[in-house]
């Protein structure tokens, strides 16, 4: 069967599952007893196995199969999670990621069998959770016994294939069965095996259900109907079925569905003798659940059909950790871009309409104005909705960091913890895709350079375990992501010495440099203060890349440093790259747009209030001295404003710096669509783009950040 068309979905979903596994195993390391986590891990591993199997990636399937077995035993309480086991599991995940990377590049999984990992996993099973090899133990046989049941190709005995014996029945089902018996209807136990190559198992199962429902009533199924619908089952499912038809008719009905390998059907006896053959433990579990059927999640039985052996009826029995079915659609980003462009055009057209009616004068129809206002609010909402569609939480990027820090902690032999907040902060999809690498660089930096070794920390009176904080939050039209550590901070002198040694600056220059200027040196290409090059950091290909990446996203990096107490690296990114709210201003006879996000206030300043400090014009506003920039000079144009009259000053901020921009006139707030100006002309830094006004003219967008 050609599965290539599903490859993309497979890749996407596998990535999600792997990320989920990473997160959950991290969680497990913290709380080895947490049943919810273990269940979640089991489920993710199980889905991975199924998906890999469907796509024909045997090696991947084998590895996940063995991982699943380990989780299965943990879940059954056979043994407990141990730190060594976590390490092994992480190695498995790395191996899986390797497969995935191979698949992504070549559509083949590669030839690495990872025998070692599989062996370790099997040893764990043999030794009841101990990560060391030893001779056989009963657990092995138990496991061996399970395997054939999972692989339907094997000629397993009929009893183990007739899985309906494993279905637990509650009081309601018993009543139904008794009622059916008294009415002369027959009760069947049915096990259906789907062909291994079947791609749409859920659809097949659905058709089987449909076919059976024509003949009678399905009283319970295993896995539950919901799980089957979500394709959360192996190659088989079982059900108990009441019907007046004969056994052969039932089998024929099931077989009428294609891609069904085998259908087993026998009359169901309430006290099935086969159950005695089931493993001891399972029986115990069953008894427990039968004796108090109303109790919440019954202990999970041990068999391979473990996940499936839950009573279908009785909603109260559903496990709490069951993931909510996402009502989402995957959309190609190009389609969204297209939609976004259309919205942009619509906004331009709307602006033209506004301009046209304004030009008509006062005597225009108020009804038209009303409609235009309505149109305005609709386009604004439309724009916001489209923007929101493009927004994704940064979670998808930051979720891999706890694992990274854990690994770094081991590699660097430093104890550290990562604390994250604001993972749900949303950013434009294109930005989120790009932000991962810079953040990773910064976290590595903090872990390697920022945090001191544990003994130094203790000597300095700090807690032994270092802390790294990753905080994300929205600030106006920006999203701020800061990476902070409680380490030693940047050693200004060390950086200076290094820079002098490298010839970047002269000792004289170093004398006069401010702390900020010194820190800026760190962002120069190939500058690293790490004493030795490690594979964590130290090659000096970090911060300059970080900076240029962030700047290419129209963002900026700021550093706050306190020597001895740690440093924080703050990234500020625009929420969106396409449409912004802007203030339109006039300078000379030209119109310019200034992004509203950078504007703090607008002041009316008398010319006499302008003072000179070091030959620079400043104004004094509410206790702060703010330098002013005359835009007409920056833009080489004659000002049209009357010199003697009050000046209109727009106070803009960049980080904690402020500046006042003097303009001739204010036009008003407007939504502007940012257009690229092409590559033919090298646009000065103070111009961040162009936009098309309602009357069709082009106005340039000033970048307040570059002016300060």
């Amino acid at each position: 069967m050609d599965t290539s068309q599903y490859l993309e979905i497979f890749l996407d979903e596998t990535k999600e599952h792997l990320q989920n596994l990473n997160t959950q195993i991290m969680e497990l390391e913290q709380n080895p007893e947490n049943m919810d986590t273990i269940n979640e891990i089991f489920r993710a591993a199980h889905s991975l196995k199924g998906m890999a199997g469907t796509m024909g990636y045997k090696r991947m399937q084998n590895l996940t199969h063995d991982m699943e077995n380990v989780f299965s035993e943990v879940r059954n309480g056979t043994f407990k999670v141990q730190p060594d086991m976590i390490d092994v599991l992480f190695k498995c995940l790395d191996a899986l990621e390797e497969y995935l990377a191979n698949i992504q590049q070549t559509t083949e999984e590669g030839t690495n069998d990872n025998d070692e990992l599989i062996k370790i996993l099997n040893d764990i099973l043999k030794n009841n959770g101990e990560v060391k090899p030893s001779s056989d133990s009963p657990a092995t046989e138990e496991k061996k016994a399970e395997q054939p049941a999972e692989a339907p190709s094997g000629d397993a005995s009929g009893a183990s294939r007739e899985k309906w014996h494993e279905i637990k029945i509650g009081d309601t089902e018993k009543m139904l069965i008794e009622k059916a018996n008294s009415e002369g209807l027959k009760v069947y136990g049915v096990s259906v095996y789907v062909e291994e190559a079947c791609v749409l198992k859920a659809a097949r199962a659905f058709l089987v259900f449909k076919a059976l429902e024509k003949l009678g009533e399905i009283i319970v199924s295993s896995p539950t109907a919901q799980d089957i619908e979500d394709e959360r089952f192996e190659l088989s499912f079982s059900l108990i079925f009441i019907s007046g038809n004969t056994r052969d008719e039932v089998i024929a009905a099931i077989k009428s569905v294609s891609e069904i390998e085998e259908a087993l059907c026998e009359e169901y006896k309430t006290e099935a003798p086969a159950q005695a053959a089931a493993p001891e433990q399972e029986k115990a579990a069953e008894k427990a659940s039968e004796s108090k059927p109303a109790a919440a999640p019954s202990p999970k039985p041990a068999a391979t059909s473990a996940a499936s052996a839950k009573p279908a009826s009785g909603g109260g029995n559903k496990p709490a950790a069951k993931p909510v079915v996402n009502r989402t659609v995957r959309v190609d980003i190009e389609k969204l871009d297209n939609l976004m462009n259309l919205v942009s055009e619509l906004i331009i057209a709307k602006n033209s309409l506004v301009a046209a009616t304004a030009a008509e004068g006062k005597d225009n129809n108020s009804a038209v104005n009303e409609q235009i206002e309505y149109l305005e609010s609709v386009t604004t909402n439309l724009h916001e909705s489209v923007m929101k569609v493009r927004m994704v939480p940064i979670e998808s990027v930051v979720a891999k960091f706890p694992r990274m820090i854990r690994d770094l902690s081991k590699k660097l032999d430093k104890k550290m913890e990562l604390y994250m907040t604001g993972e749900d902060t949303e950013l434009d999809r294109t930005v989120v895709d790009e932000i991962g690498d810079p953040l990773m660089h910064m976290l590595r930096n903090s872990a390697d350079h920022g945090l001191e070794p544990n003994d130094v920390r203790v000597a300095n009176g700090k807690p032994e375990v270092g802390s790294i904080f990753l905080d994300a939050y929205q600030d106006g039209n920006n999203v701020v992501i800061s990476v902070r550590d409680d380490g030693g901070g940047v050693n200004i002198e060390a950086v200076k010495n290094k820079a002098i040694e490298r010839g970047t600056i002269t000792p004289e220059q170093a004398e006069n440099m401010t702390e900020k200027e010194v820190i800026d040196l760190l962002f120069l290409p190939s500058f690293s203060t790490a004493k030795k090059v490690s594979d964590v950091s130290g090659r000096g290909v970090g911060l300059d890349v970080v900076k240029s990446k962030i700047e290419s996203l129209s963002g900026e990096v700021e550093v706050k440093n306190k020597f001895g107490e740690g440093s924080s690296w703050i990234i500020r990114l625009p929420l969106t790259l396409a449409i912004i709210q802007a203030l339109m201003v006039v300078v000379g006879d030209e119109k310019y747009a200034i992004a509203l996000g950078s504007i703090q206030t607008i002041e009316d300043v008398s010319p006499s209030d302008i003072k000179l400090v070091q030959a620079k014009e400043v104004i004094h506003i509410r206790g702060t001295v703010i330098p002013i920039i005359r835009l007409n000079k920056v833009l080489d144009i004659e000002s049209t404003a009357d010199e003697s009259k009050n000046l209109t000053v727009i106070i803009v901020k960049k980080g904690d710096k402020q500046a006042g921009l003097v303009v001739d006139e204010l036009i008003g707030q407007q939504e502007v669509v940012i257009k690229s100006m092409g590559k033919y002309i090298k646009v000065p830094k103070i111009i961040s783009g162009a936009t098309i006004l309602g009357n069709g003219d082009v106005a340039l967008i000033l970048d307040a950040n570059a002016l300060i």
Partner: protein
Amino acid sequence: MDEVKVMDEQKRNESLNRPVERDTTQYIVTQLGNEQYGIDIKYISNIVRMQKITRVPKVYGYIKGVINLRGEVIPTISLRLKMGLPEDEITKKTRIIILKLEQHESIGVLVDEVKEVVTLDDEHVERVSYDKDDKAKFLSGVGKYDGKLISLLDITAVLSDVVDA
């Protein structure tokens, strides 16, 4: 009107079922001051009337600014200033020729007037001798047509200079 002319030429070729021969090139003849310049038609995507050009500060003088061409922002240069001629005088005949080189984005070129489309055989084109002064380096040759001399612009050279600048 200018566009119509271009169309006419092409249509005539089509209607006569006359394949454009390999050794002929079509040029759009433009007027700059007293001189006539030819631009290879294959680079031209559009010719528009003069419209408002938004000045971009702090760029080279020959870059006049940006225009709005159906929602696209397109930089526009003055061919006059580029060729070392006096500043443009905007008249009714002033046109902006929108050029599009293969991998590059569109760019507008300001000219005094667009005259006509001519088809020149290679034998009517004289390659310029190698006294490459400022102006000559932008020329690919001189064409003779109807008793007039037309300087043929090497658009790639003109624009590569802009890109590098």
